[in-house]
């Protein structure tokens, strides 16, 4: 067995080691100058940013945290940069989750990144007045349908056990008619697909999405039809929103690592094809 044949039958553990190095090493280095400038702000990202920019202060924005820890590296930065944008624009934020661990993700974002930010601290945000976390509710798309008539009926108590109707922010919020935008951050079912069908199409509320890179192609057709105001896809989408909103967080940092690892995978694909063509037709 010559070199190329050995390469063709390369032990997958060798690939694992190279991919691990490509992922980990860039995390210890700063991206080269100009790298951040090259992060592309796609039109779905820009349109979401523009929509939020145009909302008057005091507008109610709902964020549905429909994901759990496995997809945190991709989706949490989307939540953080969007939350920061909303609070800096003085928008009122209602957080919910159709995934059991979604509201916990919302709490993590608030405690670790939002309430510790100097610019946000200056806003002196009050729970119940400027933002609420209504927690998790089982029932998937039927919860969305119920919210269409009465949000407090779908979420009778918040994350901390306070009655939803007693929260000052929720006093003027009956249903989707009082919400200017629903931003769904999702890693699967229920997710953006369900929000578009059961909230956007049924009740006319504006929907935007933040999805994993794997999920993005499934919901991107809704962009061309105008059923989505905007859409962030994967780490790239999260980094683009950070860039457009002027806040450089984890997504921007991780992009360098992702770029190097992608290059490594492409290198292996090319190497594999080279070995395939060189050894093709040979008898082993």
């Amino acid at each position, binding site marked *: 067995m010559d070199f190329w044949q050995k390469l063709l039958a*390369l032990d*997958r553990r060798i*690939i*694992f080691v190279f*991919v*691990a190095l490509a*992922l980990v090493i860039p995390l210890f280095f700063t991206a080269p100058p100009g*790298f951040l400038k*090259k*992060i*592309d702000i*796609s039109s779905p990202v820009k349109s979401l940013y523009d929509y939020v920019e145009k909302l008057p202060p005091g507008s109610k924005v709902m964020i549905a945290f429909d994901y*759990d*820890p*496995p997809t*945190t*590296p991709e989706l949490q930065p989307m939540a953080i940069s969007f939350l920061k944008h909303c609070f800096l624009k003085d928008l009122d934020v209602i957080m919910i989750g159709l995934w*059991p661990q979604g*509201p*916990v993700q919302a*709490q*993590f974002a608030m*405690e670790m990144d939002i309430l510790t930010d100097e610019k946000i601290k200056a806003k002196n945000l009050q729970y119940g007045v400027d933002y609420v976390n209504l927690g998790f*509710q*089982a*029932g*998937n798309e*039927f*919860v969305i*349908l*119920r919210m269409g*008539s*009465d949000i407090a*009926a*779908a979420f009778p108590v918040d*994350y*901390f056990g306070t009655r939803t109707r007693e929260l000052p922010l929720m006093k003027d919020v009956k249903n989707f008619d009082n919400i200017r935008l629903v931003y769904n951050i999702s890693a699967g079912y229920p997710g953006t697909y369900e929000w578009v069908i059961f909230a956007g199409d*049924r009740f006319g509320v504006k929907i935007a999405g933040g999805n994993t*890179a794997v999920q993005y*192609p499934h919901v*991107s*057709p809704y962009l*061309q039809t105008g059923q989505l105001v905007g859409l962030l896809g*994967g780490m*790239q989408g999260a980094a683009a929103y950070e860039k457009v909103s002027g806040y450089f967080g984890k997504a921007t940092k991780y*992009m360098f690592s*992702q*770029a*190097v*690892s*992608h*290059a490594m*995978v*492409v290198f292996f*694909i090319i*190497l*594999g*094809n080279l070995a*395939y*063509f060189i050894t093709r037709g040979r008898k082993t």
Partner: protein
Amino acid sequence: MRREIPILIAIVVGFVYVIAFFVPHPPLNKFQDWGNDWIQIIAGFAIVLGVLNLLKVSLEKVYKKSQGWGYAVIIIIGFLIMTAAGLFFSGGKNYQNPGTPFYDIFFNIYFPLNATMFAILAFFVASASYRAFRARNKEATLLLLAAIFLMLGRTPLGDYMSSWAGDWQLKNISDWIMDFPQTAGQRAIMIGIALGIISTSLRVITGLERTFVGGE
């Protein structure tokens, strides 16, 4: 009667939900709200049922010493620890509040373990890409090229590598792949699925489809 009553419920609820979609006025919308409340309650109980079923299956596995019973032991221990932490050691606070043992275990153990499981996928995807993306024929070559364009075009690296190429930059090629062939294919799949859902739903609410209550 065990089959007829569930079928009758499905027919009535199905028709009311369809009509309420187009005529969202009383009494249909009230009926729909009532139905949605019921679904939320049932879904809540389904979660409890699911957890108890997992516990039952795990206990059986340990009792019978079936293959992989060691993992079942971990499930049972994890279940007991989390339940006890949430119910008895929250110090009068909501168990989800920062500082409670439940919160600490969730954040420091469950969270990184769960994230690690998903992160491992990256390595398998890389290894699978190495073996699967071979230019064996026309279709495989197209798939291979699309993968390379997307992997490079979706990161700033693509910009570095192709900034000289004008309109043919990797970023533009990957955008074109996503906006046209991908969207067209995805839309075809979505329309196909929607038609399938409509035909199956029609069969259920007209009583023709009865497999959901068991039997043929």
